[in-house]
């Protein structure tokens, strides 16, 4: 009996909790991608680097706060710095939209052309981030490390297997829930949010209804910048901040958005969790779990790991390909431009 409990705890500890946190981060990233796709109608390749910029701005403010001795006690100081990071990123994307994207929007450029433009923006953001903070790992997490540590859990329950919930994981999940709830309330209940959905649904009719496209676009960028910064900071708190990692997040984020259906916010969230759970479960070594569950004689020698963690990108990729082959509009029927 306790073997089964131990196995469950191990699965929770090594798969469920990390995957939920990672899934929340991916979902927030994918929401940004999907909003841009829905409203501005192109795949934004600069999104990973927008996340990096947002995280970087937050880190710089966090360091300053830390140097001033200002903190949130057990919570990471980064949460306090987050609004400043969001503001900086909003400024950056709005300036980018004004100087770069607006021209092509007015010229009604083809979506694939905008993707190439976003590639240029990606370069610039990437360079900017490396220029300001450098290409290396940065640590900015502070406050309490654990909500529940493995040792406390073992003492509490008497099990052999520990269950640890890092505070960064708990914060990620709580923040993601709040942000997503706010976003859906905004899109579903407010007049402005509805006008954004209307614009995404049928641009010409939205214009006929007197919806101002520039306002919708601007609001979209503000939301996207906020989502990207929050996703970037949460990922950085949970793992670490390294500019190149954020660029690489582009693949799982796009996979999440496409799997869910580009343009569908609900799909982006579902896609984020599908990708995260598959990635974590497939790259997890099940040796320990098997050790609890199987009779001693059957215990495997190897790690019982389907794929090494180095191939986690392959997981998002395979899921992406499967969905593209069998349901090209994604699980939640996104839109096809």
């Amino acid at each position, binding site marked *: 009996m306790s073997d089964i409990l131990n196995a469950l705890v191990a699965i929770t500890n090594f798969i469920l909790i990390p995957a939920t946190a990672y899934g929340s981060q991916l979902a927030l990233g994918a929401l940004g991608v999907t909003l841009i796709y829905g409203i501005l109608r192109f795949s934004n390749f600069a999104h990973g680097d927008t996340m990096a910029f947002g995280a970087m701005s937050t880190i710089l403010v966090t360091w300053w706060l830390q140097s001033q001795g200002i903190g949130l006690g057990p919570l990471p100081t980064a949460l306090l710095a987050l609004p400043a990071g969001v503001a900086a990123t909003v400024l950056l994307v709005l300036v980018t939209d004004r100087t770069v994207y607006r021209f092509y929007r007015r010229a009604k450029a083809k979506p694939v052309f905008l993707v190439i433009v976003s590639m240029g923006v990606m370069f610039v953001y990437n*360079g900017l981030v490396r220029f300001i903070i450098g290409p290396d790992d940065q640590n900015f997490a502070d406050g309490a490390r654990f909500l529940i540590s493995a040792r406390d859990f073992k003492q509490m329950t008497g099990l052999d297997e520990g269950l640890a919930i890092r505070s960064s994981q708990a914060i990620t999940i709580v923040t993601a829930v709040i942000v997503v709830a706010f976003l859906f309330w905004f899109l579903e209940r407010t007049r402005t949010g509805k006008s954004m959905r209307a614009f995404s649904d049928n641009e010409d009719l939205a214009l006929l209804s007197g919806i101002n496209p520039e306002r919708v676009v601007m609001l979209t960028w503000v939301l996207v910048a906020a989502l990207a910064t929050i996703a970037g900071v949460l990922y950085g708190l949970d793992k670490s901040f390294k500019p190149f990692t954020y660029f690489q997040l582009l693949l799982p984020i796009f996979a999440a958005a496409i799997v869910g259906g580009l343009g569908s916010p609900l799909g982006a969230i579902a896609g984020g969790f599908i990708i995260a759970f598959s990635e974590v479960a497939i790259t997890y070594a099940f040796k320990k779990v098997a050790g609890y569950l199987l009779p001693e004689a059957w215990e495997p020698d190897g790690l019982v790991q389907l794929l090494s963690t180095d191939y986690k*990108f392959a997981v998002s990729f395979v899921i992406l390909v499967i969905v593209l082959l069998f349901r090209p509009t994604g699980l939640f029927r996104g839109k096809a431009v």
Partner: protein
Amino acid sequence: MRTVFLFALVGLLFVVTGFTSSWNVALGIFNMGLISAIMALGVNMQWGYAGLFNVGVVGFVALGGLAAVLVGMPPTPDAWSAGGPRILLALLAGAGAVVATIALRRAMRPGWSRALATVAVLVVGFFLFRAILDPAVEAIEAVNPSSTGYLGGLGLPVLLGWPAGALLAAGAAWAIGKTALGLRSDYLAIATLGIAEIIIAVLKNEDWLSRGVKNVIGLPRPVPYEVDLQSSESFVARARDWGIDPVTASSITVKLAYAGLFALVLLALLWLAQMALNSPWGRMMRAIRDNETAAAAMGKDVTARHLQIFVLGSAICGIAGAMMVTLDGQLTPGSYQPLRFTFLVWVMVIVGGSGNNLGAVLGGFLIWFLWVQVEPIGLWVMELVTSGMDGGNPLRQHLIESAAHMRLLTMGVILLVVLRFSPRGLLPER
């Protein structure tokens, strides 16, 4: 006219570098410029001819590099006897599972039972593959890990690795094209981005194949070694006659030899690409690019044509990758960065002029030159900007240290400026 002028201008950049720093440096940049031009040619085929958005260039380049290693390096007999046949068997099993899946899907009618059968075959196939492969990998990687620990290559002349690189890249492109072409253009982009990440991950982690991050070094060369030249009396004597230091002379000679080889490949490919572009086939490609619906309505098989050109373009990137590894004499999987390859090559194509082969070549040289030179220029600018500051000023130190990252910023700005003000590039398509 414009073409001649712009090429002369870029040529001048290299000549000026030759005089101001050294001919060695100028030739070094020139050789990579040749390779970059070939990559740009490949991407231009895909984007310029057919409008295909491939952001997995780095993957195809890396595959080309792998091919050069697999062809040119001597085999490791101990590793082969330790697990060679078993690896081959595992690969066969993997391929068998894929073939079985395809056959199954053809034979059965769509529905839940087919989906379940597909999954079952794939899962069983995967475990079988891993069960055969894993012990072999362990055995091979245990063989003298500090110097080999991999199967090695075929020990053939390294030049044969170039066409092999093309083949390997073409094979991967065919597989990815089969799945992602015919879908929306940005889906192809994401799919290629993904396959490139996976190829790089394989190169980094499958030590039995590519030694992973331990790198394969000492690839045989198609041209003489500097040391041999320096010890050749006739060479040293001739260098003295010309009044050049033999060491410099040897290194320049080697670089010139490479340049000759690369230029030959570039010219041949350029000639072929021009022929193709102006043939009925090329006209059809452009017709498809400009109006897919109309071309499809006229009975052109758009997806099949796209697959063709996607494979061709990727094969050219594969050749370039093999050439680059030959030039470096080593395969360093850790150095394949998408920003450096994929996206930089895109900047070359767009700046040079998409749809124009000469434009792509020009872009290749120009952007590579800038990529190399922006760093020292950035440093110089930063020193100029901060010259008024005190030497210990942290801002000054930061700016000077960060000058290296000016590259990405500059390339991004160049790309955006060209897209905005001259979207057809320096040499527009005729």
